[in-house]
């Protein structure tokens, strides 16, 4: 009996860690989406496409380095920067003319952009499956709570909080971060005191997309880098942002943790119906807190 209890408790501990590590990827992507939603009020459906492009860029960078571990570490930096460059072009050429439009119009526009980016990925990289290999140090697994946990998941567990703290410091301790937060709350007032709101918006958009690209680069070693990987993540990211509170960075963290942990525990408790658990959690949160867990900036 005690042995069974110990096995169950170790499984709980294992699934808890695995769930949090998945939540870290979700957090990075949904934090970017939340930032754009908060500051620009743009429901960017193409955010998932930028995540996918980040994964493809990561593949290209690692391929250039031919399996050298340096390629992976550089990919984590370069892939999001490349996505940021793509998004800067998109923002200056297209988005900056549309901020005053209605949400429905913006939704349709970003949906069209998602389709265009999907086709561009097919043109540039083709339809074949691609894979990114993590460096040797992150391959294989460690035994924690008597069960194996991939080293890469532990790496994600370490990276997630670092990114969260960096985002917190950026938005609370830097001038541009504070302006972006102010613009999220009252864009007219920010404009009235002489700040060039257009460039604040541009910066916020690029930063949000950088996070999407970083999410894509981080997830690349664990999945097949392929067309269509944008679809699932964008649905999950929107759900997370909604339950966390629109535009609230910490809300994105809370939503990601709920999503990742309920998914992981769903597998442990009822593996045949594990798919349902995170969505059930979303429904429960929205029933109890229709505006999200934390304060929405909308």
């Amino acid at each position, binding site marked *: 009996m005690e042995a069974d209890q110990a096995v169950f408790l170790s*499984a709980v501990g294992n699934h808890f860690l695995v769930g949090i590590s998945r939540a870290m990827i979700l957090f990075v992507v949904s934090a970017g989406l939340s930032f754009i939603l908060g500051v620009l009020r743009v429901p960017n459906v193409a955010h998932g496409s930028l995540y996918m492009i980040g994964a493809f860029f990561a593949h290209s960078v690692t391929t250039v380095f031919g399996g050298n571990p340096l390629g992976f570490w550089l990919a984590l930096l370069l892939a999001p920067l490349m996505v940021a460059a793509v998004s800067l072009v998109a923002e200056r050429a297209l988005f900056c003319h549309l901020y005053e439009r209605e949400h429905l119009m913006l939704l349709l526009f970003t949906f069209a952009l998602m389709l265009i980016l999907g086709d561009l990925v097919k043109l540039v990289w083709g339809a074949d499956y691609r894979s990114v290999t993590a460096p040797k140090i992150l391959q294989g697994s460690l035994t924690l709570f008597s069960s194996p946990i991939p080293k890469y998941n532990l790496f994600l567990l370490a990276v997630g909080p670092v990114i969260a703290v960096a985002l917190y410091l950026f938005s609370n301790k830097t001038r541009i971060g504070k302006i972006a937060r102010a613009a999220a709350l009252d864009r007219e007032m920010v404009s009235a005191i002489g700040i060039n709101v257009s460039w604040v918006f541009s910066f916020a958009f690029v930063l949000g997309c950088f996070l999407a690209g970083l999410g894509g680069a981080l997830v690349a070693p664990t999945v097949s880098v392929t*067309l269509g990987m944008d679809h699932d993540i964008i649905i999950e990211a929107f759900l997370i942002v909604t339950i966390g509170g629109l535009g609230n960075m910490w809300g994105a963290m809370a939503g990601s943790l709920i999503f990742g942990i309920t998914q992981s525990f769903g597998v442990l408790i009822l593996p045949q119906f594990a798919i349902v658990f995170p969505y059930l959690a979303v429904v429960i949160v929205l029933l109890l807190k229709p505006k999200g867990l934390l304060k929405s900036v909308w």
Partner: protein
Amino acid sequence: MKVNKSGFWGIAVLGICAVAAVSTVLMPPAAQARNIKVGIIDCYSGPPAVYGKDALNGFKLALESINKEGILGGKIEFTTRDTKFKVDIALNMAKELVLRENVDVLVGTINSAASLAVSKTIAKEQKVPFIVWIAKDEKITGAQGHRYVFSTSENTAMAGKAGGVGLAKKPYRKYWIAGDDYAYGHAIADAAWRNLKALKPEVEKIGESWWKVGEPDLVPYFTSIMGAKPDAVIFCTGGASMTNALKALKATGMAGKIPSWIHTAIDHAVLKPLGAEGPEGVMGTIQYLFYYPETPENNAFVERFQKAYGNPPGFPAFNAYLTAQFIADGFRKAGAIDREKFIDALEGLKVKSPVGGTAEMRACDHQAVYPMYFGVTKKVPQYDFVIATDILTLTGNEVLPTCDEIQKARGQ
């Protein structure tokens, strides 16, 4: 009325022209040599595009030699439509190809649900032959089969039987079943378990887990399975999910601890991107391997394909190549571009397989018959990715349901 000489000749020429024009208009179209029109509906966007593209390349390669020779005085021409892996789009595209483009044969698709829908509502109702070339649902030529639908793809019954036969030879007793939560995943699971249980009644299923198609994070599923300590796992996944599953097998260390069987796990389309990091010891089944059997025909096929498209052919290319052969030889045997005569000609028709030998279109269910291979992944010095080794060849008749079973499934 008097007609002069030049007037007479003028009237004569006009008369001849009029007769020629009328006879051209009234001449029955069958009397004219024309091209055979094939309409292809398949997925060319999203993760399944890799298979749609491979099939299209196999089809084009086969047409190169077929069209050099010609068929009934004409050639085979084709037009493609992207279904985007959606049933409604597949139906609209198939309808458009039949009603507007007037295609003689419909071909496609990778999506089982779309194939079943097109088979039922377009092929059967419009009486157009429809050859399924990648979708694997056994209902296509089984329970829901009919006169107008054919398949050159292996189906879940064949894959399940091949897996069952291969696994029955292994010493495992306690199994866990896991896979993509959609029609294909469950169909493979049912077929594999049914056949394994029939061949080895003492096997026991200790649990199941199902994830959404393309699930990026399979680690919690795998750690949970490892905790249950089964002797072996039957994974029912495919496409992009397959790569995710193979990566998770390696990352969690499960590949070296618990044996697993996954249909098409030995497909190079999923193993090649993983390179040397692909997991070893994974059992898989498939109907085509570019490196096995090493026949002159297969080597020539691979060389031509590689030269034309830069990659070795996968199983969709093999299926599509066979499809083109069946279309060409079927119309040759029929002697006319006539859908009903073509169907009669296809039943029992044998064509040359690109790996050597022949493949037959079984008359009782319109299912192509060819061998299947059961192998285990392993690193070998010849390739920079893992390939199938210890290959066991199962003949087509060993893995196919019998004609009696098909009739029973159709309630006849």
